[in-house]
């Protein structure tokens, strides 16, 4: 019989029993007794038909389903009778489950799913290493020359390919404005190495990837749809990048976003980069992806490359910047590197939250079980099976957590939707979506929650105490001790977990605050930045470049409201970007194999003034010395103290790429990124006409946004094909780089607040329960002359004890948890005393607040009322 025939079977059985019973009745009547007597006699002989029916049906399989349905109906009725309890429990579960499902979905999509490349386990990211001994931990880019050597000599990789993210200007075409795009340079075999094909058109070939070939470009799917309307006719058309022609040869699939999600174009690297950069050993700028040959281990591969690096290093001892070894890590780890840790910390936080939610629901259930004690005792006494009662309790919990889970799933959907909208530049964010595994995870979490909270509640009412409960029914002076103890234990756990979350959130918040208030070494208020660059192709001579920027700055400074303006290749907060090696002419030459390098920037003379970078000694560049006669350099304070200890750097000379420059000034230190310590910087004059791309900064005390349009129109008057991008105030620019930190801190703070609220609710519930149970006892105490303050103090202490123990446990556990977050913190230790103190104070205050109402109520009891209450 199948389960859906169950109803039929039941009806059939009922008919069978009825007809047989009637027959019995008839037979008795035929024996000559009255109709009524016959019926009773038949029933007596037959037994209880309902019981017989139940017992007979139990013979068939699927009967359990019927009993399950019965439990379900019963539990539904029970839950509907106490809507407030049910709603609270469901909401608590929904929050816990929703947060977990959302975060698990993200973690799965980002960290656990294999990369969408062919056989991704054999793909590794390769770095150079070992220039300095403490350099082994870094992930240094690879120089073109070393890549060449690796590629020629290695025996471990079936292929090695090169990538580099850059920015290019796409010229105006077909009525569309010029724009600045994130693009990537690929060696021709990159897509082959990854095992990816373009969705349309063809891949690069070896013939495309050299300086003599005509330009070729692959478009991203998004770019193709957005800019070219998804028209396949774009294939073999020509577009202009940085004023040079490129033929569109293909469109990549929508999911492809290597090396990072903002990449919109790919061009061949050997075609785009000058030959000297591609063969240099000391210009470290590329990412190298390798595919290991089958059977070759990661460490064998690295050892192979390290030998090549060492040999190359030894062969060029005059070049101090050649690394001596190689490092590698799985490609997935490289891609998700920075996001891995915060995600796991957040996942742990949501697990804590879920545990707290479960504990709270269990606590509520225990309280309810206590209230339903007599009902349960009577049912047990009447023969209700123990398993049956536990089953019912579990069914209740299952109902709660399924409804909570359903609601939580909606929450998770909303949260993920929001995340996709706001964090679309997170690595691998496109692979985040609901799938079978996430569904299984959700079901697992729901069942686990039901089991966890249900079993705790179920075991709190074991049948040993039935008799006690029935005895107590007549007159109870104080409730049994066991359940308050259980509830206090649960509460202690809950408080402990809350403390961990609070400390984690506190640390992140403080770290974030430190980060935002870190002195950048320049103005962050009243400064607006705009990115722009002139293509080398249209401005081939240094004079043209220098003139462009002279004119631009002159016209910008003439705008009404502009207090100061300047231009630099890189401004503080925009990252490391570029360094150059140098030697000091006045110093003895360094031993062979050693070198010095510092961040290098190009700036116009008034840049320091505009950015508020103080000139500590000397002066800024002489604006009159331009082009070849520009022979001045300005250094930062840390440059001076690091390379000129105990001497005056002014009028000393730096030699860079064979050219000598004189140090004319020392300026204040700046940070290249928020959260990084200031590094030595060398500033060269923009007037030399070397650099072509950078950031325009404008300082004004009167409304920064008003300058975006006038500057854009100045630029387009000077060159209609030039895009201006990233119009950001300095605060926005810095804000972008702290977005992740603020996001993590905010999320963790939200979790912590939530769990604090849950713990407070739990504390309040337990205290109210204890107070209610001890009404009579307190009445007697007060009647016998106990002072109200005494009663209140005793109640308060009673409630604060689990909170205090939980606090101690939580603080101890936080020491461990804080260690886990060490990498996420900026300038503060995981054991920050102010955070610990603040959390302890907050928690105790909230606990006291949660306890004080029940305690106060208890102390206000009228003894007569209390004694009469029973």
């Amino acid at each position, binding site marked *: 019989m199948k389960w859906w025939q169950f109803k039929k079977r039941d009806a059939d059985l009922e008919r069978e029993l009825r007809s047989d019973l009637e027959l019995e009745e008839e037979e008795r009547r035929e024996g000559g007794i009255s109709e009524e007597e016959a019926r009773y006699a038949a029933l007596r002989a037959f037994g209880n038909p309902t019981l017989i029916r139940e*017992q007979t049906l139990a*013979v068939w399989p699927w009967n359990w389903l019927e009993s399950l349905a019965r439990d379900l109906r019963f539990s539904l009725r029970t839950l509907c009778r106490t809507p407030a309890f049910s709603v609270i429990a469901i909401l608590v579960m929904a929050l816990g489950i929703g947060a977990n499902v959302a975060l698990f979905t993200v973690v799965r999509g980002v960290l656990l799913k294999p990369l969408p490349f062919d056989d991704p386990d054999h793909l590794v990211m390769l770095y150079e290493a070992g220039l300095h001994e403490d350099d082994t931990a870094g992930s240094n880019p690879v120089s073109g020359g070393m890549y060449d050597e690796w590629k020629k000599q290695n025996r471990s990789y079936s292929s090695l390919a090169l990538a580099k993210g850059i920015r290019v200007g796409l010229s105006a075409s077909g009525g569309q404005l010029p724009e600045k795009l994130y693009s990537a340079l690929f060696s021709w075999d990159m897509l082959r190495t990854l095992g990816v094909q373009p969705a349309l058109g063809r891949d690069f070939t070896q013939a495309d990837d050299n300086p003599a070939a005509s330009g070729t470009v692959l478009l991203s799917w998004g770019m193709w749809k957005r800019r070219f309307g998804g028209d396949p006719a774009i294939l073999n058309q020509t577009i202009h990048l940085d004023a040079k022609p490129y033929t569109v040869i293909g469109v990549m699939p929508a999911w492809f976003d290597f090396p990072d999600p903002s990449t919109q174009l790919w061009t061949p690297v050997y075609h785009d980069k000058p030959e000297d950069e591609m063969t240099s050993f000391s210009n470290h700028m590329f990412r190298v992806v390798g595919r290991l040959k089958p059977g070759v281990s990661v460490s064998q591969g690295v050892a192979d490359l390290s030998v090549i690096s060492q040999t190359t290093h030894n062969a060029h001892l005059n070049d101090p910047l050649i690394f001596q070894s190689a490092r590698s890590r799985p490609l997935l780890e490289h891609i998700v590197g920075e996001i891995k840790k915060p995600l796991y910390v957040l996942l742990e936080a949501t697990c804590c939250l879920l545990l707290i939610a479960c504990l709270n629901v269990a606590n509520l259930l225990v309280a309810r079980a206590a209230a339903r004690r007599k009902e349960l005792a009577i049912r047990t006494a009447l023969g209700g*099976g123990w398993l049956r009662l536990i089953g019912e309790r579990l069914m209740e919990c299952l109902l709660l957590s399924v409804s909570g889970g359903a609601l939580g799933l909606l929450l998770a959907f909303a949260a993920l939707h929001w995340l996709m909208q706001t964090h679309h530049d997170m690595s691998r964010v496109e692979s985040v979506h609901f799938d079978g595994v996430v569904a299984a995870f959700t079901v697992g979490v729901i069942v686990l929650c039901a089991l966890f909270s249900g079993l705790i509640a179920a075991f709190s009412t074991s049948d040993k105490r039935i008799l006690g409960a029935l005895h107590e029914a007549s007159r109870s002076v104080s409730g049994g001790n066991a359940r308050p103890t259980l509830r206090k234990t649960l509460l202690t756990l809950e408080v402990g977990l809350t403390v961990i979350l609070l400390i984690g959130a506190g640390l992140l918040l403080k770290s974030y605050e430190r980060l935002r208030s870190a002195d950048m070494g320049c103005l962050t208020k009243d400064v607006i930045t705009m990115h722009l660059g002139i293509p080398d192709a249209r401005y081939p001579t240094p004079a043209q470049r220098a003139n462009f920027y002279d004119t631009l700055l002159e016209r910008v400074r003439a705008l009404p409201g502009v207090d100061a303006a300047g231009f630099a290749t890189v401004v503080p907060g925009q990252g490391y970007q570029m360094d150059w090696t140098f030697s000091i002419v006045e110093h003895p030459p360094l031993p062979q194999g050693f070198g010095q390098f510092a961040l290098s920037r190009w700036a116009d003379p008034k840049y320091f003034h505009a950015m508020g970078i103080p000139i500590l000694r000397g002066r800024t560049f002489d604006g009159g010395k331009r082009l070849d006669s520009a022979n001045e350099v300005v250094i930062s304070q840390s440059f001076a103290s690091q390379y000129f200890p105990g001497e005056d750097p002014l009028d000393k000379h730096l030699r860079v790429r064979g050219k000598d420059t004189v140090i004319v000034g020392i300026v204040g230190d700046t940070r290249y990124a928020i959260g990084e310590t200031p590094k030595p910087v060398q500033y060269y004059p923009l007037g030399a006409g070397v650099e072509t791309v950078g950031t325009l900064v404008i300082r004004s005390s009167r409304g920064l946004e008003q300058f975006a349009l006038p500057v854009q129109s100045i630029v387009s008057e000077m060159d209609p094909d030039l895009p201006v991008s990233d119009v950001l105030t300095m605060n926005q620019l810095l804000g972008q780089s702290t977005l992740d930190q603020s996001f993590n801190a905010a999320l963790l703070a939200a979790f912590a607040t939530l769990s604090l609220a849950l713990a407070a609710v739990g504390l309040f519930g337990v205290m109210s329960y204890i107070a209610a149970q001890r009404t009579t006892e307190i009445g007697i105490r007060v009647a016998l002359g106990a002072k109200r303050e005494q009663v209140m103090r005793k109640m308060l202490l009673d409630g604060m004890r689990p909170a205090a123990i939980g606090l101690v446990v939580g603080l101890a556990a936080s020491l461990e948890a804080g260690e886990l977050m060490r990498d996420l913190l900026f300038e503060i230790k995981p054991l920050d005393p102010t955070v610990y103190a603040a959390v302890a104070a907050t928690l105790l205050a909230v606990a006291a607040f949660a306890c004080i109402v029940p305690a106060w109520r208890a102390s206000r009891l009228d003894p007569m009322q209390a004694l009469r209450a029973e």
Partner: protein
Amino acid sequence: MSSMAKEAHQRVGLLQGTLDMLILRTLLYGPAHGHQIGKHIQRTTNEFLQMQHGSLYPALHRLERRGWVVSKWETAPDRNREFKYYRLTEKGRKQLVVEESQWKQMAEAVARVMWPAAEEN
């Protein structure tokens, strides 16, 4: 589990095999409905075995589930109403033989222990 439930469980277990055999044997005479089967066993044993309906119907359904009997609603010849008639299947006939021989062995074994003198005679 409460002690009441435990007892009920034991009683069923004790009678189960025997009751099944008695039902199968009764059906050897031809199809019968539950009431008839119960009455027949009761009458044949001179009211020694009081038929518990709480055991009879679960037993009938168990036999049906195992395929030893099949059931069908048929009109009773003596009354103008339908009853659920149980009929022995071929599988049930074989089972009866098995159970009968097992019971016989069991009875003999018990007898040997209980009345050893009788065997010597």
